[in-house]
């Protein structure tokens, strides 16, 4: 798989680190009750199809970014 880093351009997946579903909203710092944090941290929509997720170019510029990818095909979409 080749992932387009917004800084460095397309690189092998081996340079990156997956960071999970990017569509979930993290409760504001210091806000949100136990339930809100539980659902945010522990529950995943885990769709079979289009997915927006976080990646870090950890063996590169260390930039964290959003990537859209189809989990049914691994087809890569936009990175931002």
């Amino acid at each position, binding site marked *: *798989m080749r992932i387009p880093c917004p800084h460095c351009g397309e690189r*092998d*997946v*081996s340079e990156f*680190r*997956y*960071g*999970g*579903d990017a569509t979930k909203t993290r409760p504001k710092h210091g806000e949100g009750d*136990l*339930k809100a944090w*539980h659902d945010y*941290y*522990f*529950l*995943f*929509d*885990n*769709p*079979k199809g289009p*997915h927006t*997720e976080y990646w870090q170019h950890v063996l590169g510029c260390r930039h964290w970014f959003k990537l859209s990818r189809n*989990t*049914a*095909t*691994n087809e890569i979409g936009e990175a931002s």
Partner: protein
Amino acid sequence: MFKPYSALALAQHALSPERPWPRAWRAPEPKSSYDAIIIGGGGHGLATAYYLAKNHGMRNVAVLERAYIGSGNVGRNTTLIRSNYVIDGNTQFFEHSLKLWEGLSHELNFNCMVSHRGQIVLATSPVQLDTYARRGNIMRLNGIDAELLDRGQVMALLPYLDYSKDARWPIWGGILQGRAGSVRHDAVAWGYARAADTLGVDIIENCEVEGFIMDEGKAVGVETSRGRILGGKIGIAVAGHSSHVAKMAGLSLPIESHILQAFVTEPVKPMVHHVVSWGAELFYLSQSDKGGMVFGGHIDGFNTYTQRGQFPRIQTVAECAVSLLPFMSKLRLLRHWGGIMDMTPDGSPFICRTDIRNLYFNGGWCYQGFKATPASGWTFAHTIAHDEEHELNRCYALDRFEKGRELDDYGIGNWTYKQ
């Protein structure tokens, strides 16, 4: 017409080739309703149906399989069985599973080739050996066999590892579970299917569940590619696609689907007589009865439903193989494949009721679905039959994260695939 398997029966068939073997399991048309429906004709689903019939007298049961039985992870794993768990709950559950493995071929009258050849986990530092010691002590204290090995003992048992100065990490010792080993994975699905079928269970292949039928918050049936089927109780056992199926019932799970790759070399005469695992990086290898070296490592590290792995992971696993067992270099990779795993925050599974009445969930198996198969079916059947978890699977509830009851057997933290 069930016909027992035996050497004698084989001989009879050999002498009169004309008399055919009966089908291992029937291919019935789905009935309009069952007392219980199990979604998923994998190892866990078939085992569940078998134990529902066997232990709980529920024989009006259907197993619905999207493709052919055993088409999921039961046929895509590295076939290892063991019970070296340290966390209260895990220890007892996986030991119960290993005990069931021990008598399985007999119980099912189907040779699953359960081989207790022993597993050795190798430590690459004194500190790691201490953590293994804790594991081994817990095993012993729970009546499970375990032996702590020093470097010399490991050298004697596994003379072919790299003990040279060239090794990146020296081998400090290891822990041996003699009763651990491997099983012919496909046979598990077929054996449970045949035994369940014999007890009256309908195994329905090419039958995909497309939705749930609810009645006042109760699950009462499923819509399938082969029509509507009602069920008094409905169990989900579709690890790999759990989120996908649970979503049809409106459930959202602490699960992400990841790919785990597995590898097999061309067959050679016996060289490796144990299951060998390594502490430097997750790596495990055994030699199948056919002669191929079967091995694997970590998941690829991101969620996907494709069964295609990424090559960089294949390289890191091959690097482990050659670095630990230098002779592997000349053996040739025959095939590699991927299975879709339910990954959970703490690496442990779910076998439990759900918020929806009469709907039960089994999944989240991470790396350990295969070895758990018998106990998973056994406890899931109990949970479905009694509408209540058995002591052995009480810890595998969906709400354990809300309660802070993680079962992190390796002390690597929640969602560690992100690391």
